[in-house]
């Protein structure tokens, strides 16, 4: 059985092959998958799972998720997109979600950075400040 370490190394190599200018090229990803499925090397399913994980993490890094209590108006979306792009560069995938629990405001997540300007977030911060000795 092929070792996990070897599979991880191979998956990383394939992932690097899919990069173009620091970004994942979708057609290359598809090409890699087609090639692996055609060749069927030892442990190819585990290799594909590992490869998928790397692609998923890359997509997560390049995804901007906006959560609001009510649907966001188009003009505000455009303004936000402009400002976030200025900071994180172009090529972000945008996702919008409506979460009434947030009460009001906006929560933006880009990669592992989170900007919380929701009322729910402020209330939680306030509650935490009371908890602290």
């Amino acid at each position, binding site marked *: 059985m092929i070792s996990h370490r070897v599979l991880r190394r191979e998956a990383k190599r394939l992932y690097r092959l899919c990069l173009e200018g620091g970004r994942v090229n979708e057609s290359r990803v598809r090409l890699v998958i087609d090639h692996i499925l055609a060749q069927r090397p030892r442990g190819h399913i585990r290799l594909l799972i590992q490869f998928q*994980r*790397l692609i998923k*993490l890359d997509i*997560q890094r390049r995804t901007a998720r906006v959560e609001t209590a009510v649907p966001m108006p188009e003009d505000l979306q455009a303004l936000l997109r402009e400002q976030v792009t200025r900071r994180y560069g172009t090529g972000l995938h945008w996702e919008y979600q409506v979460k009434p629990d947030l009460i009001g405001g*906006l929560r*933006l*997540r880009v*990669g*592992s*950075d*989170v*900007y*919380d*300007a929701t009322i729910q*977030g*402020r209330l939680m*911060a*306030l509650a935490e*400040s*009371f*908890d602290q*000795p």
Partner: protein
Amino acid sequence: MSQLLQEIEARIAGAKTAARRQNVGIVREIGDGVVRIEGLDDAMLNEMLDFGNGVMGLALNLEETEVGAILLGDFTSVREGHEVRTTGKVLQVPVGKALLGRVVDVLGRPLDGKGPIQAEAFYPVEKIAPGIIKRRSVNQPVQTGIMAIDAMIPIGRGQRELIIGDRSTGKTTLAIDTIINNARLNREAEQSGDTSYRPLYSIYVAIGQKQSNIARIVSVLEEHGAMPYTIVVVASASDAATNQYLAPFAGCAMGEWFMDNGMDALIVYDDLSKHAVAYRQVSLVLKRPSGREAYPGDIFYLHSRLLERAARLNENYGNGSLTALPIIETQLGDVSAYIPTNVISITDGQIYLETDLFYQGVRPAISVGLSVSRVGSAAQIKAMKQVAARIKGELAQFRELAAFAQFGSDLDAVTQAKLERGKRIVEVFKQEQYKPVPVEIQVAVLWAVQNAFMDDIPVERIKEFQTAMVDYLTTRKPDLLSRIRKEKALGDDTIAALKQAIGEFKQSWRP
């Protein structure tokens, strides 16, 4: 009431209203107190991570796509997919005198039900040891109250002295005796208003021990009035391996506060074998590469960086000290195993306890041949040096001759005398647990042995003679004992007085 309203207003104003940037990650895997988190791009090594609901973690592995962290506290509420935040802080514990007399966990939270602790400050658990510029060599003794140690293997303030031996050979007892003796010295100095005496505070770190054992130790310390000068840090056998791994570092941070503030502290790590096992477990679950006996490659560095934090600072840096007494449990007396050899090489000497001696009734069962103190003799008081200088050699010679003598009975007078003297020294060094002996009494007793006052006493009655002599000196000659204690040396007139006092006692002693 108005103050309360103002305080609430201040708190509300203090709560940030602007959008805060936070670094978050998602729990991908959890098991055995260890989590693997995706995201957390900005996490620092040893940074505290917030899992919400009061659960905290510590980032230990920073990998390309994920972070490996250990969880502190109750982690049953943490689930896969849980959001984790970085805090920008390294793990800290409360420090200061408020902790004295308390039993605390790894994070400095009280376990004794005596209410919250108002700590003076917080210290990071991981800290770089003081450098060479800050240090000085040891020159003050730690009086353990154990005659065999104070005479033959003296320990100085700032030294690292390993206590090593098999299970049930009295390792913990030696450490507890030392704590009790120093608490007694602290108390006496307080009561007499002696400001020149530097109190020695103690920290006892219990790693992977049974809760019943810890409870027993705490009750012993309370019984002997040592708790007001002692902090007990507990990571018991039922605690997670992560807590056991962190416990000595937390205790060390508490001790460092005393050292940094110009005071002296003693820390007992009981024991580092279990600590190594806990660290091995954490490392294996974190999937770090394993080496000899499955211990991770940095097991030596783990203990060396911990023990290097024990130091004696020079006067420019407050003159404080932190003395470390790590304990290692050997298996079947094998001192050449991996962890024992590591810790032996790190420390400034070791006290080796032998099972055979223990069962022969020689307690404390210190093996004189294998025990050594590399720096402590510089800190020994002059009076002790005067009486104990030759004792270690004599005792080692006795053990050699005793082994030789069992093959034949024709021994010359000199050998016979050495054997007889050796037997008496062995008897004199026998000591009951939790009954440390003040240094002035140790000096008087050893002087009596060295000057042939016990040569005509039958070996089996030496202990009886010693007890009666100590009683006599304590009740009838307190001035002489206090003179030895104060002068810390045996001058001609003190020797004459000692000779006279012991001579008088011997005449009156009826076997």
